[in-house]
């Protein structure tokens, strides 16, 4: 009986400890970002990936960044962006930030793609940033398609001209 009550007490203590942690996390609100550069997709960086950083602030700016594994170019771009952040004065704190870089398929930037996909940046500061970039298209392919497109558009006109020639008898 005593062992059972001891087990129950231990379970209560454990449950109590777990229930305290989210409350304490809520007690310190995340600092508000008042200035930041828009994180454009790194040039010549066609890879997609996620960068997770643990940032530490001094009450105004980010003073330290601890990264987890991420592609080098994306990591550099994410860090550059975080360095531009300026916060409302707050208690020095530490929190996680996630940058998601997604590269849309190359065809969708070109005229060969009918679907309208645009570059976009979604910032939910200071915890997450999603960047969607578009891979540049193959100019040669795009040009040949453009020529075919214009010839197709001219087709009805040429048919019309053919009829006119037929009626007038001109060549």
């Amino acid at each position, binding site marked *: 009986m005593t062992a059972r009550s001891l087990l129950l007490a231990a379970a209560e203590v454990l449950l109590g400890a777990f229930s305290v942690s989210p409350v304490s996390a809520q007690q310190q609100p995340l600092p508000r970002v008042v200035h930041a550069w828009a994180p*454009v997709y790194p040039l010549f960086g066609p890879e997609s990936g996620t960068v997770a950083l643990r940032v530490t602030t001094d009450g105004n700016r980010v003073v330290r960044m601890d990264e987890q594994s991420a592609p080098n170019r994306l990591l550099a771009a994410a860090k550059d962006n975080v360095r531009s952040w300026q916060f409302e004065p707050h208690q020095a704190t530490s929190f996680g930030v996630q940058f998601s870089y997604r590269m849309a398929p190359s065809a969708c930037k070109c005229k060969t793609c009918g679907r309208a996909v645009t570059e976009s940046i979604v*910032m939910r500061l200071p915890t997450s940033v999603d960047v969607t970039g578009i891979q540049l298209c193959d100019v040669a392919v795009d040009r040949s398609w453009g020529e075919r497109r214009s010839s197709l558009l001219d087709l009805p006109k040429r048919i019309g001209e053919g009829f006119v020639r037929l009626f007038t008898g001109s060549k």
Partner: protein
Amino acid sequence: MRLRGIAIGALSCLVAACVLRVEAQQKVTPELPWVSSAWAPIYPPIARAARIQGLVTLRVTTDGKHVATFDSESGPAFLVIQAKENVRTWEFSRHQPVSFEIRFNYKLFIPCEPVCECSGDRQESVTLRLPADVELNAPSPIICDPSAVIEQKK
């Protein structure tokens, strides 16, 4: 009779050609310049406190690198000033000077509080689809009277 049929066919083809060409011309839009750097716009705290929201539309002309002139504007006056301030920080990759429209949509949502009705568990966010569209979502100051809500639930 046969000649009449041919004539009608020809006329239909010509009309179709005209319609297709007009449609094709309408679909051609000038290539928008690529924004190489910009400050992220922030929902102004004063505007949020005053519950100012709405759509700001700016027509701008670039000089090939920056926005050179603001040709027209519409929307809440305070937000127009903020949007223009942000657009002035934009830098484009080199391009032929061009004129285009930019929309800044400032939206407030009611944050979730334990007793008040709210519009879902949303988070403050900025969405940039440069250079044409910017959307800012921010929590509005609590406007509900908790006692009234409790009374209503009874």
